[in-house]
């Protein structure tokens, strides 16, 4: 999910000058964009060697950590925004990480593939796990160990007493606010601690 328009749509949730922590920051493109375009500061967290290297190369401060080991290194409310973009679905302790996100950040932004997107539903109806541009893996070799829907996340957020500031779907970089659970490949939630 590296398309420019998607990045811009998510960046709009990050106020100018914010101190940002990007969990699972990949090659650092998002943080680099936020630093350049929105005057943000902050760090990426990443486990993959090649991604860590890419961050160092583009001058993004990166901390190499396994997110499944928690965020003990980061203090309470030490960031304005904590991003979890296409990260949640790879985590063993997705709920713990959501709580940690809320602890470390004053606000959080989570984006993940919405499994309830209609092409996925169609595929399931036909008896097969979906293989799409957004979920391009076969069921037996996918790195996504969690699949959830837009609606599922609302329930999880509520259970963890998160106040949803804004939520929408993203499809081809465009915001989907009408029936996002069916019409968007990506679910986006902006929240804070209630």
């Amino acid at each position: 999910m590296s398309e420019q328009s998607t990045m811009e749509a998510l960046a709009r949730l990050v106020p100018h000058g914010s101190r940002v922590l990007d969990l699972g920051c990949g090659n650092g493109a998002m943080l680099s964009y936020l630093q350049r375009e929105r005057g943000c500061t902050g760090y990426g967290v990443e486990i993959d060697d090649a991604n860590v290297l890419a961050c160092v190369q583009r001058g993004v401060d990166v901390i190499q950590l396994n997110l499944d080991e928690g965020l003990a290194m980061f203090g309470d409310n030490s960031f304005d925004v904590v991003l979890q973009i296409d990260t949640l679905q790879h985590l063993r302790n997705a709920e713990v990480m959501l709580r940690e996100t809320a602890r470390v950040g004053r606000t959080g932004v989570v984006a993940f593939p919405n499994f309830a997107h209609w092409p996925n539903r169609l595929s399931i109806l036909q008896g097969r796990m979906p293989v799409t541009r957004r979920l391009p893996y076969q069921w037996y070799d996918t790195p996504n160990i969690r699949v959830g829907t837009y609606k599922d996340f609302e329930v999880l957020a509520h259970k963890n007493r998160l106040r949803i500031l804004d939520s929408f779907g993203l499809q081809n970089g465009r915001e989907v606010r009408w029936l996002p659970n069916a019409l968007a490949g990506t679910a986006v939630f902006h929240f804070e601690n209630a």
Partner: protein
Amino acid sequence: MSFIATPQSMHFPEALTLQSGASIRDYHLAFETYGTLNADKSNAVLVCHALNASHHVAGVYEGQPKSEGWWDNMIGPGKPVDTNRFFVIGVNNLGSCFGSTGPMHAHPDTGDIYGADFPVVTVEDWVNAQARLLDRLGIDQLAAVLGGSLGGMQALSWTLQHPERMRHAVVVASAPNLTAENIAFNEVARRAIVTDPDFHGGHFYRHGAIPKRGLRIARMIGHITYLSDDVMNEKFGRQLREGMDLKYSTQDIEFQIESYLRYQGDKFSEYFDANTYLLITRALDYFDPAREHANNLTLALARAQAKFLLVSFTTDWRFSPQRSREIVKALLDNRRRVSYAEIDAPHGHDAFLLDDARYMSVMRSYFDSIAKEFA
């Protein structure tokens, strides 16, 4: 083929007050430089050395093709710390046996060899001595201070003692202080040396003796702790030194690893000074910048202004990744700029001197970004 390195020496007549309250004067620091200092003197990188190393960081000495500097894979033309761009300074610490004034030199007042009377030096003292060398070289601010292990402690100390004199600190396979286990290893090594009958309370020079037995054992212990169990097993396993048959001897060498350790110990005892070993391991034990801040590393590092790169190695049990993360956390708490790479290398503590591709790439990229600041 490496470039030719030329050792230099600088004399400091004026007294340097040490952390202990003692002072030392009329001392020399041995150093080497590689590359060219640019016009605005903004491209200098200071390399701090680890336990048994020296100012000879890179290159070879004239006519001695095997005299490669200890970090020659990292530093040189086209290497991660590229001497075509950086002016690299390797400096040998006070108390060493490799050229700077140390226990085997004469006290300026008495003319007697210092021996055990050489004052105890700390990481902070070394950094202050290095700062004086920079003054003399006319360098106000370093592009970076770089060090691994004990050298990393010096780099960290630089950011606290002279925060305005450096832009970057690169701290590799290091720690904010030693654990009890680490101090324990150092103590065993020191006891091996001081209980050697040839030690003579540290004044063995007067007796024409060298406590080689103690040095050998000290080195063997050290060496074990620098490697990982996996690498030792891979390299030596349970191989016997001679043939297949056990000798049923408790004193002869049976296993290859014994042979290797004895060889390393013998080699070390030929060139390393016993008092220097005691001094350096003590400096390691003492280093603890959080101590004067109620053991709060976050408070201790509040002074730091540099941008940091920290690197650790997953199999390093002497300076484990956890210790590097403590430094990272304290820097995060202080909102300092920091990157941290945790390299999954098999080699243990020694990995910081070896050629792991991921490690080398991170170092190269980081120094590339430093170079962009003055290009």
